[in-house]
């Protein structure tokens, strides 16, 4: 899929804002834990997985990892995460 570019029809004094998906009040269903492959991201996610499993035993947790932190996640990985999960938690920095 190619990226479409459009031209800004406004006077450009406001930064382009991206819409954020509304945040649900409860965590139910499937949660993705995404490791972007920065050092020690896995440590954080291990702890998070443990804590979440204790607090929310009915939630299904799946671990994912980007091949490298320096590039955007491959399209297939993004689609896979989007199709199979209700939430995603990404460990960003080391």
């Amino acid at each position, binding site marked *: 899929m190619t*990226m479409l570019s459009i*031209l*800004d029809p406004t006077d450009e004094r406001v930064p382009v804002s991206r819409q954020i998906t509304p945040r649900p009040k409860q965590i139910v269903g499937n949660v993705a834990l995404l490791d972007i492959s920065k050092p020690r991201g896995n440590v954080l996610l291990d702890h998070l997985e443990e804590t979440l499993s204790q607090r929310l035993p009915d939630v299904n947790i799946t671990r994912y990892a980007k091949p490298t932190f320096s590039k955007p996640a491959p399209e297939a990985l993004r689609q896979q995460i989007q199709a199979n999960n209700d939430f995603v938690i990404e460990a960003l920095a080391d």
Partner: protein
Amino acid sequence: MVEAVAAFELKNLRDEKIAFSGTSDALVCFIKEDCPTCKEVMPVLMAMYEHFAGGIDIQIIGQTLEGNKALDKAYGPGFSILDDSALKVSFAADVETVPTLFRTDADGAVADTLIGFVRDEWQDLLQRLSAEFAQAEVDLDWQSLPQWRPGCGSLSVDPSNADRLRAEAENSPIRARKIDVGAQDDEFEFMFDQGFSDGLPLVPPTPERVLRMLEGTRRDAQEIIGVMAPNLGEVNIEKIAINAVMAGCKPQYLPVVIAAVEAICTDDFNVHGVMATTMGASPVIVVNGPIRHQIGMNMGMGALGQGNRANATIGRAVRLVIRNVGGAKPGETERSVLGNPMKFTMCFAEWEERNPWQPLHVERGFDASDSVVSVFTMTSGPTLIVDQESRSADALAGTMGQTLEGIYNPKAHFATNCLLVVVPEHVDTLMRDNYSKADLRKRIQETSSRPTRDLVGNDVSGAGLKAATAAGMSEEALNKMMPKFRTEEDIHIVVAGGEAGKFSAAFHGWVTGNIGSIPVSRKIDI
């Protein structure tokens, strides 16, 4: 024809970056694999490379990566074809046909340009190179080659690529901020989310579409034509073109949109007040002159309604410029209590040919042959004036006067102006008695006149003159007849509509004069 081949850097089939300085004695040839002439030329290029590569910089540039690989496999040439699948180098060199061979001299200037394959030209060039570099003549069986082959279209001028390449080129007129829409985003939803829309879907303003839109005017894309309230955003031709694309305009409508925006950006029009008022005012655009026909505007049946692209999208484009550049959005600085459908679009043409009087633009000081846009601020309309019975001009104009008295409320005299749209059947009735526009205005004022005492608020309607004010007035003042409009000039008259139906209509104005909005006309720069 280019005078020099600019510097470039392209990758060859071995994935090595090859830089071309643009200032050397060189041979640069553009080819593409699916062109039969390019295939005929391959043996000549190979011989040329073999003979002269030591003495002169030779670059062979292919326009598709897969094609380059196929040529490499089929011919096994001594050179590795450079990949210009992005077509930027082909575009910059203004290549229209492949093969095109440029010979540049030591200063980088193009000395020879060979387009397609003319055997004598190629043979002559190679002979001159042999002489120049004191080498034996290239060993080629020239007679086995065709005398002439025209070549094929370069991919850089293919309509599916050309607009994109123009938009991306360094001298592109496009300067607006580019916004990338994510590959997984829906561009139509994205534009709604960004608040660009009036509530209806928009055409995505891609650089290619905006460039095509800019073809509709000779004016410089960066020319600033005004400042749009309420945000005081600078409006240039490019921003108008972007909004015109979103509205669905054709490029030939652009001059009309530009002129309307120019009219709106004036102090007289006062778009700040027009948008901010709780009353719900909106621009109403009337187009006169030859451009009406050139762009296919509707001035006949249903002229004030939907179904005509020019009418609908010109009005919409103007509204989108006000929204996006001016920042007028409902609930923010646009404060209309109810809003009205004219805020989506309201633009039509006058049927001058069915008008027995001077058309609007001539009345407003332009030549009949000028194309002109006139912008009015109106709060409601079109409100019908139904009269199927009157058979004389006086009687019909009387109905009009009585109906127009209802604008705002019947006691609101001297309050506003109106734009009266007289339909053809009503024109015919008025012309039975050879009515002029002046006669019509006079009769409207006569039949809408009331003694001042009738305009005082009372238990039936509290609107109008305050009772306390009236109590201080003389008998003479209370008996004075007050017409609906402050002056006859407040009654603007145009002709439009289908041939059948005795239903004229009026748009009702907003605050007039210096404290409100004054109608503005602008000649359309075609």
